[in-house]
């Protein structure tokens, strides 16, 4: 009792500081969950959540009736998984390489430069990408032309489109990941390197046996967090770059929902898809969490 009171006396400001955060989460994350009801309704905006008629699972039925739904799910997962994997490998590699640089200013300049695209929006970048990738005047195809390769219409070809999405997304975002991994690197005890050196390990062996294991918890953490995005293939990127001929390889759940939900004002339907997405994502997150715990003995909670 006495201890508790003393603790409370000491810590109440901390609890008070936590309070606005909890309120924010409640207002913006928990209360809107009531909106899930829309998935089972024919939602009419001015009748609101409680006045709109319930129609059971009809919204889900409509989704399953759509013949391309399998393709849309495949595209989403395919693009998203590639983005997650590439978005892991590239920053880790770059972070390790940067760490080996001796001149501090080179390291910092490089770090800042690769971080910059993170701040540009896809609306802007899509315009640039369209120009850069243009088969007639784009710089990339001109370079390829020097090697005698015929121009490729990257944004109009189903074979290329998903990879263009992955590469451009990794290019845009790897700077951010790099910073996180660099921070993880500074946390590795230098005496481990010294010990490895005494044992006769070269630069490469040191990386393999000291650096990588040292980064592992952070890598696992980042991976666990990104697994939740396995159904988010990047709406704003794809929406700004796709066109009818590449729907086959580019149409993802989010673009589909946008066209159906917002353009056709079928809010109930859009919510149903959103709910389905959340459920699947939740399963994935749980799985990766269990895996991380079992394999790497790492827990977030």
């Amino acid at each position, binding site marked *: 009792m006495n201890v508790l009171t003393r603790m409370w006396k000491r810590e109440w*400001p901390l609890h*008070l*500081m936590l*309070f*606005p955060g909890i309120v*924010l989460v409640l207002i913006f994350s928990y209360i809107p969950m009531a909106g899930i009801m829309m998935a089972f309704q024919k939602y*009419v*905006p*001015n*009748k*609101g959540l409680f006045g709109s008629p319930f129609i059971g699972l009809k919204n889900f039925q*409509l989704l399953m009736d*759509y*013949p391309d739904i399998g393709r849309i799910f495949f595209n989403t997962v395919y693009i998203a998984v590639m983005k997650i994997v590439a978005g892991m490998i590239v920053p880790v590699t770059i972070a390790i390489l940067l760490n080996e640089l001796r001149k501090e200013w080179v390291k910092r300049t490089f770090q800042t430069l690769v971080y910059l695209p993170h701040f540009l929006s896809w609306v802007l970048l899509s315009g640039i990408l*369209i120009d850069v990738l*243009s*088969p*007639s005047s784009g710089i990339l195809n001109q370079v390829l032309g020097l090697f005698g390769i015929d121009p490729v*219409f990257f*944004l*109009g070809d*189903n074979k290329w489109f998903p990879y263009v999405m992955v590469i451009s997304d990794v290019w845009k975002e790897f700077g951010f990941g790099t910073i996180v991994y660099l921070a993880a690197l500074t946390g590795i005890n230098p005496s481990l390197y010294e010990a490895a050196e005494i044992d006769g390990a070269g630069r490469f062996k040191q990386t393999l046996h000291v650096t990588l294991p040292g980064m592992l918890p952070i890598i696992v953490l980042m991976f666990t967090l990104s697994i939740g995005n396995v159904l988010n293939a990047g709406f704003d990127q794809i929406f700004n*770059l796709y*066109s*009818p*001929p590449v*729907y*086959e390889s580019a149409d993802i759940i989010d673009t589909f929902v946008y*066209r*159906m939900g*917002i*353009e*056709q*004002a*079928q*809010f109930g339907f859009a919510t149903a898809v959103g709910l389905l997405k959340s459920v699947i994502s939740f399963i994935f997150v749980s799985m990766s969490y269990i895996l991380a715990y079992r394999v790497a003995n790492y827990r977030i909670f």
Partner: protein
Amino acid sequence: MKKKSRILLIVALILSLTITACGKTTNEGEKQPEKQPETPVEQKNEVIEVSTVSASDQYLKFDEGESFEKNSVYDAYEKDIGVKLTNKWVSADDVQFKEKVKMSIASNDLPDFMKVNATQLKELTEADMIMDITDVYDKNATDETKKFLSMDGGMQLKTATFDGKLMGIPSSYNPYQYQFLYVRTDWLKKLNLPEPKTMADLLTIAEAFKTKDPGGTGKPHGIAISKDPFNQSTAVTGLIAFLNSYHAYENLWMEDGNGNLVNSDIQPQVKDALKALQEMFKKGLIDPEFVVKDVEKAAELLYNNNAGIVYGQSWVPAQLAKGAVKDGKVVQEWGVFPIPSVDSEPARSQIGLGVDEYYVISKQAKHPEGVIKLLNHWIVVDNHPTPEQKVYEYGKDLKEKGNNYWLLSPLRVGKQKDNNGEILPRAIENKDESILETKDHKTRYERAMKYVDGTDINMWWEYLISGPKGAYSLVPEIQNNKQYLQNKFYGAPTPTMADRQEILKKKRDEVYFKIMMNQVSVDEFDKFVEEWKKLGGDEMTKEVNEWYATHKQ
């Protein structure tokens, strides 16, 4: 002491957070005292406040010191009819406008009145979010207004009527808007080619433009197309007129000969047109990058002499002018032609009803009569303005300087019929001002004359629209020979249409594009037809025909 100040700091931090979070409420609280001094003024002039939403436009150029909040047009409305206009929001352009309208509807946050499309009109009616304006319109619309909006026999008003209730004001325009074919005539002369009379002529011309590269750019294409060519709102660089040449039409309900309606998207004529497009694509007459080019980007092909053929509406010359007139000299010569036909039967231009958007009044609006007043006044100032009322067109100095101030009027309706084609070419050819009738005639005549007498060569485009060989000069013949096809379905979207239209359209675009770009064989079209029927097309056709049975004239 130290501890106390720390607690103080923490409390201050939390307070500041809470206050910023509640920032909006505080603002609203402040608003009220601000408004009070205005009230007496309002009462004196009986000014009513009406809110709307607007779109900026690249052609709208504000005078010094004016903006959407304050400009001479809004001031004039307030002075002349006592309606003070406010904007709930202003979008950056028309595309964004449409997005934001959807958001306004979804969040149930409507201004007093706004422009919506046919689907939204129906949706808002069903959701009971907009006002039944039958009585308001009846009481407040002037006789002139009523006559003006029913020049077409009341068809357009009928499309806005649900169960006998008028739910919106049609944003009317002349439905007889044809598409034309625009070709570089200087290139025709240079290559010694005839004018395009048939589809075969046109294909020959396109091929010559590609192989002989009369523009000397090294990267020639036949025809300029932008990324959404099968959309009726693509008024330039589209392909709908190309379909029409093959007696194919875009998403139009037409009679099948047995008194039933069928959708044009799945008719075999479309296959012929797509096949022709595929051939053109294979020959390089179409820029393969069209799928990622918006209208302006596609039009650069025309400005830069890469392409010399484009389809579009009568005002296309205004678009072409950017490349055709440079430093006060005409550097590209363009001719306008009726759309050629693939066979001996003349091509019919596909036209709509002249209305696809409506002004609706929110159920919450306090002054619906203000909206009708705006409508009455717009018709007056747009059709027979007094000299002072020119402010609505030109701004406060009442002079034409290309600022397009008419875009500021929040409620605009156009004439459902015009005789520009009969009058203007004749007047301009004979320099005869006396036969001009409407304000539109006079404005166009003045502009074209500036080109004719050489005072302003930039007005070249008006001459190509209204002049003796302009786009309008082709209209009377089309009109008299009835070389047009109007959509037979003008009801609100049917239930299946509302559910499936978007799915069908995307499917269609995907197949059309792939055939066109030679990614799949043209026979894929037959598969699409089957799929179209299965995916709700048959259901839709049934519903449309049920509607047609009760509305047939």
